[in-house]
């Protein structure tokens, strides 16, 4: 499954545009929201040095924040649906294009929005539990979050697959039924990609930290500032790039598992297609020498 996912990504690098666009769209939504919130708070410090904010305003902000979470949640769900649709069509040997997948996901916007509302609400409730209930709150939140993530692994493919509107609870039920078919394979492949992603990010973090500390020791403050700024920019750019790649890979792997669960056939690894598209005269010469 993981190999299929890598090959699909190598053949369809355009898929990386989807999470990138989602990230930019989220930023475009978040910035004005944040600006409004920042301006609406009274930032004048009080006598004890704390910042005061209007009490009533805090409660009025709740629907405001909620709407932000819901919009961001929908953007994430929608972009996942686009990638999964594209991958599913490829695995089924159907014609596929990014434009077509955007259209297919948009056609299911009702179901996707409903699912996104449910997911976001659960996320917020878990966050509330984690913060407000001492000791056990974190454990409960983590357990429920992990269970919810696994239970809804195939909810989006189920929504895309259904011909009619499907509510979030029905989508989750179908997802659970599908998971039972691919339990072992599903969890392992998702974990494998997440593990590789985690190790890569941590290694990158260590490398950045080493450069950061090294520069601090070796350079004077002025040169340090000039040196660390481009390095920091590069670090975050690489981090974002890797997040996009691994995120896309996980979505494709999810589509591959769903395809396997529904059809009983493992998606072809696309080795053949990849081989043909990457054959060069130099490689061909080496083959026959």
């Amino acid at each position, binding site marked *: 499954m993981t190999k299929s996912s890598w090959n699909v990504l190598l053949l369809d690098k355009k898929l990386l545009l989807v999470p990138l666009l989602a990230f930019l769209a989220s930023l475009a939504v978040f910035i004005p929201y944040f600006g409004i919130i920042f301006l609406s708070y009274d930032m004048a410090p009080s006598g004890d040095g704390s910042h005061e904010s209007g009490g009533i305003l805090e409660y009025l902000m709740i629907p405001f924040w909620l709407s932000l979470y819901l919009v961001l949640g929908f953007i994430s769900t929608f972009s996942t649906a686009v990638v999964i649709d594209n991958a599913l069509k490829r695995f089924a040997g159907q014609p596929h294009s990014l434009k077509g997948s955007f259209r297919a996901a948009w056609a299911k916007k009702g179901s996707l929005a409903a699912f996104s509302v449910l997911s976001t609400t659960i996320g917020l409730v878990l966050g509330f539990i984690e913060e407000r209930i001492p000791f056990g709150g974190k454990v409960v939140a983590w357990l429920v979050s992990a269970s919810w993530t696994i239970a809804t692994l195939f909810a989006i493919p189920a929504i895309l697959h259904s011909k009619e509107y499907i509510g979030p609870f029905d989508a989750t039920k179908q997802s659970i039924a599908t998971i039972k078919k691919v339990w072992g394979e599903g969890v392992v492949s998702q974990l494998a990609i997440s593990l590789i992603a985690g190790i890569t990010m941590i290694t990158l973090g260590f490398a950045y930290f080493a450069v950061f500390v090294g520069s601090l020791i070796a350079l004077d403050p002025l040169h340090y500032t000039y040196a660390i700024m481009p390095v920091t920019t590069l670090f975050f750019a690489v981090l974002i790039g890797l997040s996009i790649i691994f995120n896309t890979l996980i979505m494709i792997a999810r589509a591959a598992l769903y395809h396997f669960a529904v059809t009983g056939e493992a998606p072809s690894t696309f080795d*053949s297609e990849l*081989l043909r598209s990457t*054959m060069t005269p130099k490689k061909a010469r080496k*083959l*026959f020498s």
Partner: protein
Amino acid sequence: MKDNRQSFEQTLLQGWEDVYRKSQLTLWLLLSLKEGPKHVAQIKSFIGDATNGLVASDEQSIYRALRRYHKVELVGYKEVPGSSGPARKEYYLTDVGLRVLNSFVKRNIIDTLFRPDIQVLIYKDKTK
């Protein structure tokens, strides 16, 4: 003197044939499969026979070549139960392999060496 000349020419011929034969394995291997699916031992036997023993290849070289060609879908294989012993791989030429082989043979042998004027030249044993 004559012995020296013959020895020299033989050495030249040997050197040329060594280089020439090294590049011949692909052609003879694919031709052997064009005749029909074969095990490695049968491929080796066909090549030795068809080239009068001049292109001699060990089974390891043939296996290595078949692995490379299998990767690029020139050849395929299926496991065939052995009459006595474990299942053996029987290799066959794929559609891709057949088209590539036919194109190679036409461009590099039929359209060149089989040309009537070149045939006349080949069979002539004197220069002008």
